[in-house]
């Protein structure tokens, strides 16, 4: 059963299913997201986890941080592991060998595992219509292997494979619009969430888990190590991301009905978001300022597109 969380007092009575003394960095938003997902479910849940920070930090021999059934499998196929479990559930149920409550099937993966390397497998699972939810922990970089650029890394970001320097302003390509791609699979529900907006996130997690068929959640995950900010500022960093509309919060139902779920009261300039992170520091040099302008233009254009689509119901 999923929970309808009305306030944090009620939420705080959740029986935690993710244990401390995992080895995620101090202040890592991955930990916030895992807790907000697991705490929104009472009862059976099964997790498939791709390789990445979450996996290597939470299953360090001989320890595990997971108090729920948890499968770690290759970098690319957290999705297919869960799809296999879901297919097995169906078969066992049909044969009368399993009579218990139906578990929630959930796959976790970083943006590297999701946008790039695992994409073909996720796409296959969505095309075949497995009843599961895929949650991407989008920290916009391959964090676990030292910060290589991924398909989710934004324009201008300095990473270990797109380093900013005398001849380069960082990554040359823009972030992939994965939500649009997942919606185009005809998924009954896809959404972007950010853990700092816990109420919005809880509602969307609940909807995704309760909807039959393949559903997709893209969760913003600020990475203190690769974005380069002080570890106590994780929530502030994500507040800036959603309030500057760099990471807009919206959902798409049945592949096309788009709804914006959070409208900032004061939209802040993207410079205010970029300026507080080491990965964008070089953009504030005079020769790179045009990249900031480009990012602002892209953000404005996307926001306009989202609003138009919402209005038109397409």
């Amino acid at each position, binding site marked *: 059963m999923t929970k309808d969380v009305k306030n*944090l*007092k009620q*939420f*705080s*009575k959740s*029986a*935690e*299913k*993710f*244990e*401390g*003394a*995992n*080895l*995620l960095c*101090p*202040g*890592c*938003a*991955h*930990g*916030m997201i895992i*807790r*907000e997902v697991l705490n929104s479910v*009472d*009862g*059976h849940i*099964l997790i498939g986890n791709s390789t990445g920070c979450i996996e290597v930090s*939470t299953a*360090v021999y*001989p*320890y*595990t*941080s997971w*108090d*729920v*059934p948890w499968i770690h499998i290759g970098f690319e196929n957290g999705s297919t592991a869960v799809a296999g479990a879901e297919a*097995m559930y169906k078969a*066992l149920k049909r044969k009368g060998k*399993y009579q*218990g*409550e139906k*578990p929630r099937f959930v796959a976790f993966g970083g943006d590297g595992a999701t946008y790039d390397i695992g994409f073909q497998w996720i796409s296959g699972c969505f095309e075949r219509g497995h009843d599961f939810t895929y949650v991407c922990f989008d920290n916009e970089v391959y964090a676990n292997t030292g910060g290589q650029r991924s398909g989710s890394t934004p324009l201008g970001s300095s990473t270990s494979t797109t380093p900013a320097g005398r001849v380069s302003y960082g990554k040359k390509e823009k972030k992939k619009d994965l939500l649009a791609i997942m919606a185009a699979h005809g998924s009954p529900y896809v959404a972007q969430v950010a*853990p*700092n907006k*816990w109420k919005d996130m809880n509602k969307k997690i609940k909807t995704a888990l309760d909807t039959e068929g393949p559903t997709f959640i893209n969760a913003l995950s600020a990475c203190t190590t690769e974005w380069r900010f*002080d*570890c*106590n*500022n*994780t*929530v*502030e960093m994500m507040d800036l991301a959603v309030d500057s509309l760099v990471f807009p919060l919206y959902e798409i139902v049945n592949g096309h009905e788009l709804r914006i779920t959070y409208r900032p009261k004061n939209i802040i300039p993207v410079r205010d978001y970029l300026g507080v992170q080491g990965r964008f520091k070089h953009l504030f040099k005079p020769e790179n300022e045009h990249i900031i302008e480009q990012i602002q233009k892209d953000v404005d254009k996307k926001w306009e597109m989202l609003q138009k689509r919402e209005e038109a119901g397409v």
Partner: protein
Amino acid sequence: MKGWNEFEIGSVLFPLNEDGMKAQEKMPQERSYTENSSRSASVAHWRVQKPVHNVEHCINCFFCWVYCPDASILAKDEKMSGVDYVHCKGCGVCVSVCPTNPKSLLMFDEVEEEKDALKKWPQKETK
């Protein structure tokens, strides 16, 4: 019971049986953990500074609870009841999100005694 590496490849396990589920729904304080749970480990040595809770100013909003990445804010009977210093990494997120004035959580040096920290609490800030 068999250990996981004694099972044959392809075995189907049913962890979601009734007993397992009941255990899962218990609050952490009441659950029994094996030594293979990371809960049995500690990351206290990662910390240079620790958050101290001042119950006098706390309004039990639970922002610190929901945003702690390491499930180290202790909640009991709808009240914030302290910090789990075995699993807290000292990131300071809880202090950043605490909305009271003065804050109800503040970072102090690891060696500072809690009672001394409470004596040093700042006054209300005027902006």
